[in-house]
């Protein structure tokens, strides 16, 4: 069978599986819609969290990103896994004990204030929208590249699928499709990695393979450092970013991860507090499988790429080179007309532009793997993008129907009415996300980092203080969130979009890049919260009792329907 037939077959099979699951797990109550009825097992929740978390960016772009940045890419590896330690230890068990539906639920009740709730809803909406636009774009890209349809058609098909199971099944449908999607995406990611590791080093485990020796008896990493030096790039195992910046970016990604509402809300779906801890353990284990393999793929792909193209005759390059040139992901310009490909660090002399996404997408072809592996990659990338989009969609719809309509605008709405509102807001959210997917605002790529910075600067301090500092009051928390978010927005827009006079790298405060600034804004949030709370009245007694109550695991019961 040709690669194209394999792609249609595998994508078709996995899509019918997702739709089948959606029909089987329809949601009939708001509790099922928001938190899957609160009865998901820790293992299933761990799988679903892992799929929810790993987006098109983790699946397609991350290995390539590391491939081009070497050691500097470690910020993503540590940043996007270390946050789960914070989640498991500082947030998940207590939020589960609190036992409501959403993050603004916690902020609103703990800080006894609808202003705090509204600020939280606003933060949840910006974070989720910046994130989901990127996912829909990812779906469109994969469709257009593999199924040879127009990008916009791809986005629309993706929208319809997500719509179908998110609107029908709510959190219940999403959870069980995500379990299936995790299996598809991890299989798709591991199979080529194992093949290539074996080809290059004789070791079946990629995590060990990239520290092993190749056919020539030289350690792969030493060889790559040598190749990089020769071509004028920085050594692979040493970075080019400052230590300070690496520190701040890693921290912003970790803390942002722990503050992302679509991740936190997954821990509301389990039965009891100890299950929340367990599912955080499962989730990180499943995520770690992909995250420890990605740096291995990065090394294999980098060596393969350099060895295949560097100083080779353009005419004699393998077939895949031409295939990917068509997509614009590879561009060759023979500047000195010698018919050879010069791939070097010097911009003036470099003749080859390589898009980072190609490192995962074209990897099977570069390594000459069988056609079915290519189909697998397409199905895996779609699973990664769809599962994350669905999780975000649910946060958006719950923020509108539950936090805004039920809690603030129309408290006496019936359960049936709220369920309709939830489905309608999911519908509108998909439409909006699809619109951004088709007409991507230039800031999409830039704002994914913003989503993490915002989550770190807004939710994380408010939640942690709400659990660990009984004296924290509404004045402190609101002031902290508002200052944190505004500071983060100011810094990002100043240095990313040139607002407020813009600025270059030299103007960065304390040498911190916008990607790492979330850490700084978070520290400011903590400081402001604590100082303001010292000068304002202590929270009422009932609230202090809530705090004491969430610190004891027993008696969590089912997620209450209020």
């Amino acid at each position: 069978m040709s690669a194209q037939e394999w792609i249609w077959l595998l994508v078709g099979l996995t899509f019918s599986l997702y739709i089948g699951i959606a029909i089987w797990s329809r949601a009939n109550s708001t509790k099922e819609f928001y938190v899957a009825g609160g009865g998901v097992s820790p293992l299933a929740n761990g799988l679903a969290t892992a799929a929810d978390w790993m987006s098109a960016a983790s699946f397609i772009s991350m290995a390539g990103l590391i491939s081009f940045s070497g050691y500097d890419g470690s910020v993503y590896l540590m940043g996007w896994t270390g946050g789960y330690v914070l989640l498991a230890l500082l947030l998940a068990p207590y939020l589960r004990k609190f036992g409501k539906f959403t993050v603004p639920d916690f902020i609103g009740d703990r800080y006894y204030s609808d202003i705090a709730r509204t600020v939280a809803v606003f933060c949840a909406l910006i974070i989720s929208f910046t994130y989901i636009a990127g996912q829909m774009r990812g779906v469109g890209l994969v469709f257009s590249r593999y199924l040879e349809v127009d990008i916009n058609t791809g986005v629309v098909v993706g929208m319809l699928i997500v719509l179908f199971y998110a609107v029908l099944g709510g959190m219940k449908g999403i959870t069980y499709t995500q379990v299936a999607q995790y299996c598809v995406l991890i299989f798709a990611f591991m199979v080529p990695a194992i093949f290539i590791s074996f080809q290059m080093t004789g070791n079946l485990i990629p995590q060990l393979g990239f520290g092993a020796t190749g056919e020539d008896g030289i350690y792969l990493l030493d060889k790559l450092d040598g190749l990089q030096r020769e071509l004028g790039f920085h050594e692979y195992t040493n970075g080019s970013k400052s230590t300070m910046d690496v520190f701040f970016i890693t921290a912003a990604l970790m803390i942002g991860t722990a503050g992302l509402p679509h991740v936190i809300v997954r821990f509301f779906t389990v039965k009891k507090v100890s299950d929340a801890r367990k599912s955080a353990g499962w989730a990180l284990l499943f995520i770690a499988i992909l995250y420890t393999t990605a740096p291995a793929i990065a090394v294999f792909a980098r060596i393969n790429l350099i060895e295949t193209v560097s100083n080779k005759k353009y005419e004699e390059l393998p077939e895949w080179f031409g295939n990917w040139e068509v997509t614009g992901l590879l561009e060759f310009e023979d500047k000195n007309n010698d018919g050879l490909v010069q791939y070097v660090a010097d911009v003036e002399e470099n003749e080859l532009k390589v898009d980072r996404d190609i490192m995962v997408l074209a990897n099977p072809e570069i390594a000459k793997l069988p056609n079915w592996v290519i189909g697998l990659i397409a199905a895996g990338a779609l699973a990664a993008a769809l599962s994350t989009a669905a999780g975000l969609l649910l946060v958006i719809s719950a923020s509108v129907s539950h936090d805004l309509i039920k809690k603030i605008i129309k408290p006496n709405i019936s359960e049936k009415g709220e369920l309709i509102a939830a489905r309608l807001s999911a519908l509108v959210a998909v439409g909006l996300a699809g619109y951004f997917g088709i007409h991507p605002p230039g800031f999409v790529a830039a704002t994914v980092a913003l989503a993490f910075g915002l989550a770190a600067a807004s939710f994380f301090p408010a939640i942690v203080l709400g659990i660990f500092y009984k004296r924290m009051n509404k004045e402190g928390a609101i002031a902290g969130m508002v200052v944190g978010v505004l500071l983060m927005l100011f810094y990002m827009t100043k240095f990313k979009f040139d607002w407020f006079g813009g600025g270059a790298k030299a103007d960065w405060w304390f040498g911190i890049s916008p990607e790492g600034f979330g850490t700084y804004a978070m520290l400011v949030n903590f400081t402001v919260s604590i100082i303001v709370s010292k000068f304002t009245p202590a929270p009422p007694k009932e609230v202090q009792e809530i705090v004491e109550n969430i610190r004891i695991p027993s008696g969590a019961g089912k997620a209450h329907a209020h």
Partner: protein
Amino acid sequence: MEKKDLRQYWRENLKYLLGLLIIWFVVSYGCGILFVEELNTIRLGGFKLGFWFAQQGAIYVFVLLIYIYIRLMSKLDKKYGVDE
């Protein structure tokens, strides 16, 4: 649960958290970032040790930390009779 017991339970919980978070900080920010160059002079097969911590080791330790936390807490919950 009695107020005094609650305070005791909470204090033990915080002690665990502190210990685990120190390890969390040391393997990632310490071994993987601040002292990466010093550790890179040591080799682990084909890996420089600092690089290995940043791209592999820290992640393994993260997983381990959560599992240790689960065990410690389930023991603590039993001890104070707050398990389910």
